[in-house]
């Protein structure tokens, strides 16, 4: 009887552990997939980030997949985190580049407005002098 009870408990524990492990595997796979999608989005959108940084993320995602297939969930988890941080870094670079470009564009526009203003000032001075010339006559 004891043996039966012990076997049943072990069986239940094993079943629970198995189902838990299966659930974790699915979650890891979907995370890897999500990272792939994010990276693909970054690659298609931006040309301003260094290729080697993109390649690192890509390489680590592949590494995570291999590790997962080898049944090493712990290592997979680390590699995924590393890849995830790298993707975050790539996004930061894209944002930085966007704001930098905006600064450059605004600077250029400011320069344009300034030179237009100077031009207007000079023309206005000429017109004022012409008026003065007429009034002095």
């Amino acid at each position, binding site marked *: 009887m004891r043996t039966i009870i012990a076997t049943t408990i072990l069986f239940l524990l094993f079943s629970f552990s198995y189902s838990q492990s299966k659930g974790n595997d699915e979650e890891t796979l979907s995370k890897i997939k999500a990272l792939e999608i994010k990276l693909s989005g970054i690659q298609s959108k931006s040309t301003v980030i260094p290729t080697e940084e993109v390649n690192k993320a890509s390489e680590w995602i592949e590494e995570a997949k291999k590790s997962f297939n080898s049944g090493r969930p712990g290592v997979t*988890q*680390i590699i995924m985190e590393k890849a995830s941080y790298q993707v975050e870094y790539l996004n930061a670079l894209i944002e*930085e580049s966007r704001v930098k470009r905006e600064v450059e564009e605004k600077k250029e526009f400011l320069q344009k407005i300034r030179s237009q203003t100077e031009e207007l*000032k000079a023309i206005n001075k000429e017109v004022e002098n012409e008026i003065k010339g*007429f009034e002095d006559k």
Partner: protein
Amino acid sequence: MRIVILFIVTLTLASASKAAPTVKDIMSAYNLLEDAKRQGGGAYAPQAMKEAQFFYEQAERELKNGNDERAEEFRLISEIRSKTAISISRKKTYENELQVIEFQLDETSSIKKNFEGELRKNVTRLGEIKEKLAISQDRMLSTALDTLEKASERINAAEGVSAEDFNPQALDEARQTYSMAEEDLTLGEYKKSIELGEKAIDLAEIAYERSKTKFELRSGILDRVSRIYGAKTEPLKDGVKVNLHGVFAPSGKTILFDAFPSLDALASVLAGYSNLPVTIEVYASEQNSDDENIKIGETQAETVKNYLVSKGISPQRFKVTSAGLGVKEGVKEDSRIEVIIHLFELSST
């Protein structure tokens, strides 16, 4: 959640037993961390900085424990987080710069707008001035043309009263001033042209006024003496000349009978201009010597004078001379008596 993940990662790394590549110098992670701090990572990306610091410390610890593989992974993650913090900081710096630029842009746009408004106003004003000036120029041209026309009329009028004889200086000045006014008109100097045109008018009017009286006086005398039978008349600059022929027989001392009507008519004319001086000049014939001709001429002139005095003309008005033989341009002239009626008043001589 983040802390849980960090914990799991740390645990997993700590329990990993797979062989790893030799660890690199973790100083690179330290340097990046310091760089991130200098660039304001602490303020702009506190979470990333916290993680970078955490992983760096883990790497340091694992390195001390001889776990090179784990140390390498921690170093890598620390560097990624530091670089992320640096990027976020730089983005923030750009955003701050952007704010300053946008402020300057607003300010400059406002200044530009002001200049645009001012320029628009000034251009309108200039247009109005130019329009007025064009109208004024048209008027000036018209006035200058009118003035020149008037000056020309006045000069013609002065010439009509023989100002050339009576006031040549004023007439010359009027003509010269008119030419200058005409020149200024062609140069577009309308104002100057008008001024000179007006001056020409004044000068021509002076010439006209000063000549008119003498011209009328001379015309009146000419008109009357031209009716004297046998008399030849000629206007002079300052008088009228009357040539009388056949008053005396050659070398004669008495007036011929036929000459009395002419002398009477002359006396009548002279009586009408009682203040005008008269010169009687006798030109002789060639029959005698020069001395004799002079003497005969003097006698004849005195005779004519006396006759005229006998007709009521004041003797003070007369001057008598004898010219001897009359020669003009190498040709001998007939004997004659020239009576010159001067236009200036007797009292002024």
